[in-house]
Structures are given as C-alpha cells and as structure tokens.
C-alpha cells in the first residue's frame, strides 16, 4: 500500500491561515489502513484544528468527510455538493488523492495533510516499512524476493557494498542491509549461483526517469 505520514501540525495550520470554513477529506484506501488519513484521523485532526483556532480566537468551521478512495474520480465526485460551501479542502489522502481532488475542483484550494512516504507495508501494528520503489521493471526473481532498489540505501544491483556490518546498513544500525537479506534468501533457496551473475546496468525508462508513467488496459478503452 501507499504509506503516508501526517504533516507537522504547525505546517497544516500554516496552510489554513485565512480560511474560515474548510472540508477535511479522508480517504478510505491505503491511508486508512496505515492509520493516517481515514475516517478516524479526519475526526482527530478536525478536533485539533478547531481547538487550536478557538484558542487563537480565530475559530474555523470544519466539514468532516471521508470517501472510499480519492484516487478515483467517481468517489471524488461524491463531495461536489459540499465543495462550493467551503473555502478550502484539506485532503488526508496520499499525493495522488490530493491531485484528483484539486483537478476536479478548479478554483478551490486543496492542501495536503499528509506527506506521502513510500510503498510498503506493516511489520506490526503502527510500524511501516518501505518495500517497493515502483521502478517499473521488477527484479525480484533475481534477488530472492527482496528488492535492492527500494531497500539498499544505494540501490546497488550488485551489492553489498563495503559498509554492510553484521547484517545492517552503514547509514543506520536500525536498517537491514538489503543485500544481506538477499544473500540469506538465495542461500535458503539454494540459488547462490544468481549472486555470481553480474546484473547489467538498469534501464530506468520504466522508472519515473522516463517521465510520468501510465498503465493502460486496452480492453477497457472502447
């Protein structure tokens, strides 16, 4: 899933300066799962904002709403009746969701309440880690199911570098060395032969380096 983290409160209040009535718009997708932008978080953030503005003698009116997904025009349409009544939308979706809302409502300021951080998953409740960098050309076949592009700090296709120490990355003793994990997996799969093959220079055109990407299902284009 796409993982997001709520922006610092002061940054959010800074964006909302001058606005009197806003909608805080949650998303029922990934950010609900990672506990940062769903129905519950909309309620919490809205309360905090009301309280802060009340304390500052500058109250704000907030409409709370959460849609199924903000990365889908169909669901973004659902709030078309509310938008004309507010003077800004604070979206708690990932960066994709924020943009769908902004695109649908010209002239309406739409602000991000989250920093979209990575594509990953949880290892335990409330603890999320990056797993994929969406490079567009999956190499997990060669690397025992562990991604060196997302999980090696230097994205080395022929790692590990000389900084791998006791299974950890040189940049942080809390971070696993992806290449140690890859080697452990290859060994368990009896595929250490894959390690000895040099991986050729990568074609980054499928990554964002090739420009904004799209994926088209031709059978749905009729």
């Amino acid at each position, binding site marked *: 899933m796409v993982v997001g983290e709520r922006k610092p409160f002061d940054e959010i209040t800074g964006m909302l300066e001058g606005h009197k009535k806003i909608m805080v718009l949650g998303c029922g997708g990934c950010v609900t799962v990672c506990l940062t932008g769903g129905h519950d978080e909309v309620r919490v953030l809205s309360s905090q904002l009301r309280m802060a503005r009340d304390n500052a003698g500058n109250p704000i009116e907030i409409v709370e709403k959460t849609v199924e997904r903000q990365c889908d025009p169909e669901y973004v349409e659902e709030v078309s009746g509310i938008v004309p009544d507010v003077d800004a939308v604070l979206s708690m979706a990932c960066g994709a969701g924020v943009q769908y809302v902004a695109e649908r409502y010209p002239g309406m300021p739409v602000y991000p309440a989250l920093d979209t951080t990575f594509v990953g998953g949880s290892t335990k409740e409330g603890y999320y880690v990056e797993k994929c960098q969406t490079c567009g050309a999956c190499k997990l076949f060669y690397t025992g199911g562990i991604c060196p592009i997302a999980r090696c700090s230097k994205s080395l296709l022929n790692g590990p570098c*000389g900084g791998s120490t006791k*299974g950890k990355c040189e940049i942080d003793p809390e971070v696993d*060395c992806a290449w140690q994990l890859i080697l452990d997996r290859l060994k368990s799969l009896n595929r250490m032969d894959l390690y000895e093959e*040099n991986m050729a220079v990568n074609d980054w055109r499928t990554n964002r380096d090739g420009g904004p990407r799209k994926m088209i299902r031709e059978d749905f284009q009729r």
Partner: protein
Amino acid sequence: MNGEVKTESKLEKILRSGQFAVTGECGPPRGADAEVIRHKCKLLKDKADAFNITDNQTSVVRMSSIASAVIMMQEGMEPVMQMVCRDRNRIAIQSDILGGAALGIKNMLCLSGDHQKFGDHPQAKNVFDIDSIQLISTVRRMRDEGKFLGGDDIKGVPKLFVGAAANPFADPFEIRVPRLAKKVAAGVEFIQTQCIFNLKKFSEWMKGVVDRGLHEKVFILGGVTPFKSFGMARYMAKNVPGMDVPDELLERMKGTPKESQAEEGIKIAVETIQQLKEMKGIAGVHIMAIEWEEKVGEIAEKAGLLPRPSV
C-alpha cells in the same frame, strides 16, 4: 601475472612487469587553492608509483578529482582518478571518463561511493544510476570495444588502467571472495583493499582469492593506514563502517605513551607491509596516510619499498 600492457599507465607497467607496486593517496582541498595539492604532491613525489585522488570522499564537497589529478600531473606525478557512482549518472560518468583521459589521466578507480548521509550535504539527492561493478564494465567497454553504454562508437577511446576497491572486512565475509570474482568478471585490472589491520582475517580472504585463482586475473594491492594516535585507532574501530581493528592493536596503541603513539602507528604500518610482501597473491600496497602525507615516504622507506622503479 603479466599480460599485455594496454595503457600508458606507469602503475600498469610496474604491475605487469612483476614488480611490487606502491600507491598512495591525496585528498583534494575544500577550496579552490591549487597550492594545497601542490604542497601535498611535494610530500608524496617519488614515494609511490601512483596516487589516488579521492572523489568527494565521505560525501564531503572537495575540489574535483579530475581537476586535482591534472594539478598532480603538472607536478610530474601519476594520479589514479577515483570516481564514485553517487554523484553522476551514466551520461556524466562517461563524459568525465573522456575528459579525464583527454587531460592525460591514465588510471581510474571505480567506486560506489559513501552514502551522502555521512557528508556535509545529507540533504542531497543521490544518483546511483549504475553501481561500481557496472562502472568497471562501462569503462572497459569504452576502452576495449570503443563503445558507449548506449551502443554508439567512441572516436578516440579513453586509455585508462581500471581499478576498484575490495573490503574483505565487511559482512557477510563468505561473499567477499565471490564479490571480487564479480569485479574480475566485470573487467577490473587492479584492486586496492580496505585498510588492513586484521591480518589474520585478511590472510583468510587472500587464501580464498588464491584458491579461486583470482590473483592471476587481477593485481591486488593491500591497503595500509598508519594510526596517528590511539584516539584515531579507537575512532576507526568504533565509528567507521566496514573497518576491522583487532583489540590487540588497540591495546598496543593504548599502551604506548602519547608522544610515541605516532611512531608506533608507523611501526605497525611497516610491519603490516612486510607481512603483505610475503603473502601469496599480493602485488603491491596502497598506503593511505589520511591527512598525514608527509609520512608516506618514511613508511615506504622503512618497509624497503624505496626507491621506486622507473619504467
């Protein structure tokens, strides 16, 4: 191991003629003053065959490796241009290879590069378009096949002697020989190792290298760094990733009176070189006296490595 000399590199000629090679290191300044390089060059001249010019080492901005190498050549010395993959994509890398070769640089060392987290611009975006192994094959292809990575022909190929680093002390130990084999397969011609303090572990690695016959395919120069003080030894042991300083060496430095610690550090370096000279598969040493260039000559002299041969 002999083989045909492919470049004008003095280092290559010395290694291919079977003589024990010595390389040194020169860190460029954090400013535009060429005199800093010239001063270091005066200290290092004739003390080794060639000298690495580091490329923004530990991710701290310094004068460029290419520019510093040119200043070194003006002083009549042979540089080894270090190049890291952290700061350049394949377009800039190939362009700098052409530029360096055109300016007269004869040796190049291919490195991944320290992560920018360690430097003075931790906010920087890193590149890592290609890695050190892919950099080796890139420069070999440019030199030997006259082709860019993209496939086009090069008019006027860069004649560079191609080196890389190896760290036998990083984890996991079991793949450190296979990783060298990967670099050899990519076309590396000489290797400079991480600083050797743990000779026992290094010998174990070298045995693996020799057992696989890799020492017949690549020249291996053992890395040697003198401790300036017990404090430095302790810092390297505790804070430098991938560094292995055994307790007995720390004890030895600690047990030496402060005023004699520098001398003891040099003694340890000389002893290390003497042991390396006896080790099967070792073709030379790489002396890295970090911000202590004036001692390279003394170490080389005491280890019986001077005068350097002329080829």
